């Protein structure tokens, strides 16, 4: 049997084994989704982001570090956001295209700290234009009260 026939047969078996997608009648979820979408679309300058699994909101164009601190996520930044220590570095789980491109100083710092990867950013340098999900590399320094 040639590869194409085998592939077609395999696809047919998979399709027949998996139950077809039936309509989802979950009004609660549909309404929650609609309300949330309306809320987010109504405020284009406010960007929802996820920081270490916590959903927070920030001003579009602000840095990840600023957003974290304002929302009570105490992210380490030993050098005071001057790209020297790289202790504020985060791994971008999704939405890396929504962050401003990396500049020379940030690249240099990450290279110095052996952390160069397209998904690693310094929270003090990366500015947000859209939703992102990030995880801090270093442990947080306790909890800050929400301001």
């Amino acid at each position, binding site marked *: 049997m040639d590869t194409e026939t085998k592939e077609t047969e395999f696809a047919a078996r998979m399709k027949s084994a998996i139950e077809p*997608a039936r309509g989802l009648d979950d009004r609660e*979820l549909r309404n929650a989704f*609609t309300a*949330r979408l309306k809320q987010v679309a109504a405020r284009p300058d406010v960007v929802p982001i996820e920081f270490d*699994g916590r959903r927070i909101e920030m001003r579009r164009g602000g840095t990840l570090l600023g957003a974290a601190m304002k929302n009570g996520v105490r992210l380490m930044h030993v050098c005071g956001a001057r790209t020297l220590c790289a202790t504020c570095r985060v791994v971008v789980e999704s939405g890396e295209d929504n962050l401003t491109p990396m500049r020379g100083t940030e690249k240099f710092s990450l290279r110095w700290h052996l952390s160069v990867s397209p998904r690693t950013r310094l929270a003090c340098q990366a500015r947000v*234009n859209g939703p992102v999900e990030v995880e801090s590399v270093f442990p947080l320094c306790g909890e800050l009260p929400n301001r």
Partner: protein
Amino acid sequence: MKVLDPPPTSEADLIARLKAGDEEAAHEFFDRYAARIRRFIANSLGAASAEAEDVLQETFIALADALPFFRGDSSLFTFACAIAHRKVLSLIRTNARRANLMRTAPVAETAAPRETGANREFNRALGEIRPEYREVLILKYVEEIRVSEIARILRLGEHAVESRLARARKALRKSLKEE
């Protein structure tokens, strides 16, 4: 006179209305894709149904957050699957961490076989293979998504997707004891 249904909205139009936060568009998006997204999540998790519902909820809230910022560089379903994929991964990681802490076997790794007669054996085999293999097979053969789009969802190169698919098919055949 027979009343005709309105023609389905084009995807570009739907995206534009979603970005504006249009209620009708949100309902249309939900009706068009929710069932497929749920099927993708349930199959990726190996039919751990209680957790699939939680992941579905999280996926839709994340989608509502992300859709107004969607740039349209992939199809809407690919975009939704990418978010669902990350939520599934995050749940698997959390379960693995929890299992590690509790020093027990990972939770919800294998599927409960579905009672679908002749397909039961196939479903059992599908539930036994690794979640990343199951996921790529579902995307390719059930959702019929192109390899380039799967690469976007899984954040892999196209070659990596092709080789994962080959390994997944092999694993499934092995599990079916066809090899």
